[in-house]
């Protein structure tokens, strides 16, 4: 069980937690928490491969993780703004409530 | 300029701060009780006390147990039991005196009505406020011995009022003595045409006409 595989296992499990939250839970906030977890799991992969990869001096993995960090923060902000707007329209933060477009 | 208000404020507080060290007398306004005490205004009043003349609180007590103050007191916190015996008052006229004179200070509201209605200047308002006690029931129920204070104390705390009272009492004393002397002379004159031996017993203890005790100025 080399440290790299340990990191990968951890990120798989984190990703599973995030995906489970997105698919199963009905509350919009928990869906967003799930998305955050998935993004961070991917970030962990980048850092793990950068650290245990062939030439760490290239810093590519690290830079990618840095940019992903910034994007995840921006995404969280926009996501929460959407949740508040949906809540104001439908009066509930339940994901299944917003289903007017259904045929 | 936006920042100028802040700078003026800081300068002001700095002046106060430095001033409190350089000349504390003007700047520090605090009177550090109990070491330093504030001079009380003259007619400050806390709770009543009984005045007695001379040195013996029993004999010199001015109170004649007329119980006017007991009736007048709004919260009814004065309790007097009149004694059967009599003792001569400051003009020598035998008067009753209170065997028991209690004031419940926890009830008293310092309204000074008892002082105003007392015809004999026997009760005045004291300025002593450090009466804290841990005994809730008997601690603030003062008896006659604790209430009686000499006339000198009264002069110390209320100098002007004490002065007026003393002059008035002195005037009453002279009037009473003059009346007594006149009565003695009259008795001697009426006794002389009958026989000289008759005047000796009256002269010794002339029945002093009861002095028209001047009602104290309202």
């Amino acid at each position, binding site marked *: 069980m080399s440290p790299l595989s340990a990191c990968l296992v951890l990120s798989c499990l984190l990703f599973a937690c995030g995906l489970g939250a997105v698919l199963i839970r009905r509350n919009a906030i928990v869906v967003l928490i799930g998305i955050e977890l998935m993004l961070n799991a991917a970030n962990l992969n980048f850092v793990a491969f950068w650290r245990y990869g062939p030439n760490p001096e290239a810093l590519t993995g690290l830079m990618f993780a840095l940019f992903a960090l910034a994007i995840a923060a921006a995404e969280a902000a926009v996501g929460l703004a959407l949740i508040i707007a949906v809540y104001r329209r439908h009066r509930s933060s339940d994901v299944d409530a917003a289903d007017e477009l259904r045929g | *300029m936006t920042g100028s208000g802040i700078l003026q404020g800081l300068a*002001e507080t*700095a002046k*106060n701060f430095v001033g*409190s*060290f350089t000349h504390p007398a003007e700047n*520090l306004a*605090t009177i550090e009780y109990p070491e330093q005490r504030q001079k009380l205004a003259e007619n400050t009043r806390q709770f009543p006390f009984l005045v007695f003349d001379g040195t013996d609180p029993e004999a010199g007590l001015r109170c004649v147990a007329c119980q006017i103050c007991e009736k007048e007191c709004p919260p009814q916190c004065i309790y007097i039991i009149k004694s059967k015996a009599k003792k001569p008052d400051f003009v020598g006229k035998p008067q009753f005196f209170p065997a028991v004179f209690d004031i419940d200070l926890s009830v008293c509201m310092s309204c000074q009505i008892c002082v105003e209605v007392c015809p004999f200047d026997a009760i005045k308002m004291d300025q002593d406020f450090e009466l804290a006690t841990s005994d809730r029931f008997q601690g603030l129920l003062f008896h006659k011995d604790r209430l009686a204070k000499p006339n000198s104390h009264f002069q110390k705390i209320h100098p002007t009022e004490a002065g007026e009272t003393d002059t008035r009492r002195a005037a009453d004393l002279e009037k009473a003595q003059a009346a007594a002397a006149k009565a003695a002379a009259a008795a001697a004159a009426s006794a002389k045409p009958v026989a000289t031996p008759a005047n000796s017993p009256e002269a010794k203890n002339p029945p002093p006409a009861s002095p028209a005790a001047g009602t104290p100025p309202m």
Partner: protein
Amino acid sequence: MNTLDQLPETLKDHVVGVFPAGLQPWISALLAIGALCAIFPALFALTTVLERKILGRIQNRPGPNRVGPAGFLQFAADGIKSLTKEDIVPRNADRLLHFLAPLVVVIPPLLAFSVLPIGRNLVALDLPETGLLFFFAVGASVEVGVFMAGWSGGNKYSLLGAMRALAQLISYELPLILSALTVVMLTGSLSLVAMVEKQSAVQVAGLHAWNLFTPWGVVGFLIFLTAAAAEANRSPFDLPEAESEIIAGYFTEYSGFKFALFFLGEYLGLFAVCGLGITLFLGGWLPPFTWLNWIPSWLWFFGKLGALIFFFIWLRGTLPRLRMDQLMQFAWTFLLPLTLINAFVAGLWHFTADWNVLFRWALSAGLLAAAYVALSRPFARAFPRRTYRFAP
């Protein structure tokens, strides 16, 4: 000079030397932690008394002088009082969060102290790469504690107080970080030890090159102090615990020892931010003049810390509290733009290094003054000076 200056270091080496080699790193770490956790809470105790005495003197009264000599045992009295007070937890409070919140508010400032260079090589945790980032990362986690405190009490007012405190902390964190970045830009490294090193260059008449002695340094330091006052909920920005409006803000539901912990956390936050300000702008442990370095370096650090604490107490005795909208408008429309302009001017200062000193100063100072006036006009118009009928 050197013995006294390096006294803490040599002392630690002696003590660590006693232990077997295997244990030595742990022991030296433990000693450093022990020293930090002893010095700053002691400074907290002293500051509570100093604060009340100085505020008293500002308001023409002597301040506490009953407990201990001239009142300096007052902190023991306050400590015992808060320890013996009953610790009430409201019924519908979230017990776990209610218990955790004070810890999350007190521990980060203690962590932040480890990065500050207190003396000539007296820094508990020397992070050559990311010293300042560690300080801000740890400082940012106080907000989670503030929210936990406000929410867990189950009381609407404390939640409102927590919201206000969070809004203030976040909107003033930006100017704080950006004015610190200005110094990082010119020092070229995030390590606080390197920053102090850079300021030790001797310019003219034996004067150490503190960052304060540059136009962008003065403005940066003032911005840093304003943001630090807001970050530590001090003086004009102490809205979150404004007794008059919302009782005690986010720690309304706390009593006894937990309340004292919040009090401690707040003061430790103030010391941490002041320590950073000293390291960034006032040359850390450097004496102003080189011929003054016979005074030990850690004494300089704590002397400057005392001066800054006095300044904050003095500010508290002077300025009234800001309203919420003034607070936010001041942060976003005045402080933040000024910080950005200051960063630009610092860059300019760096590239005009070979100019004549006078021109260089005139250019930078002129730009900053113009920016200050331009930015303060809309702010002053938004909040006109109040005119009173009778007061002057």
